[in-house]
């Protein structure tokens, strides 16, 4: 800080325990290694399933998308230190909303524009 007096932090407010911060500082980056291996497994798994078309394509698209979401969660949790914060981890709230709105945005756009003739 720059000589100012405001090293204060608002306290944890009731109802916001879900964004309580958390830090980890292990001696060996085991987390990272496991995260890397897991992301490789997910990537190759999705690829293998797609190349071999192990099920109905539209179901499979849903499955590989779910695997992508799992991998995003993996990256966020393992690599991105998503719970780290000074005071409540506020960024989790908009981040969660962003993913929700983002998925809604893509899904709704497709839904809105996939129409056939409205009149039979």
């Amino acid at each position, binding site marked *: *800080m*720059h000589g100012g*007096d*405001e*090293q*204060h*932090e*608002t*306290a*944890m407010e009731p109802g916001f325990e879900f964004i309580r911060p958390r*830090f980890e*500082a*292990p001696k060996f*980056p085991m987390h*990272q*290694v496991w*995260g*890397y291996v897991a*992301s*490789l497994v997910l*990537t190759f798994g*999705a*690829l293998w399933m*797609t*190349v071999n078309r192990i099920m109905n*394509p*539209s179901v*499979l*698209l849903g499955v*590989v*998308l779910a*695997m*992508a979401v799992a*991998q*995003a969660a993996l*990256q*966020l949790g*393992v*690599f*991105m*230190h998503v719970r*780290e*914060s*000074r*005071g409540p981890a*506020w*960024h989790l709230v*908009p*981040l969660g*909303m*962003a*993913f929700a*709105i*983002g*998925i809604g*945005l*893509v899904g709704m*756009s*497709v839904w809105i*524009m996939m129409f056939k003739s409205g009149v039979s």
Partner: protein
Amino acid sequence: MSSHALDGKAKASHQELPPEFQDQEESIKITGFWLFIVTDVLIFASLFATYAVLVNRVAAGPTPAQVFQLNTALIETLILLTSSFTIGIAIWAMRQNRQRMVSWWLALTVLLGMAFVSIELVEFAGDVAVGWGWHTSAFLSSFFLLVAAHGTHVTMGIIWAVALLFQLRRRGLTTVTRRKLYTFSLYWHFLDIMWVFIFTVVYLGGRLI
């Protein structure tokens, strides 16, 4: 101190935080950077929405199956996943106060990023050479914009990382450089997440629809 009335426990724990969080102002910058990532999530969501809506509008141009080469995409994915791992190690080293190690892992990340961008450029050049530019069809417009937006982000990241390497040499691991490294790592992992979605939706999806 005007904060004596506050939660004593939270106060005490600040001493144990990593330096980039101990400093109030730097920690605020990290929150700000998270919110920048939030806007970028929605930028990419909009690009994905455009792609999803326009993917079938191929006009007289090629279809997704004709354009995409899964091998190249797989190599790109592996490179980016690895770079996500290396920057993760760099942050771990930073928390261990090992400056030389941080620089090396960061440099490795930069190299991997450069490899990724080069492969992508070669792929693009190949498409354009056979006449599949982004003016060919709405599908190709949306494909190129989505992937190029990601590629531009990676390029920016490379410039940023190189500048970071310079600052690290000059100033060492200070509160500020730590915060800059930390936000860079957030950015880089985020790009990796976006690429995972591009790989899934565009390249794998191209095989499925």
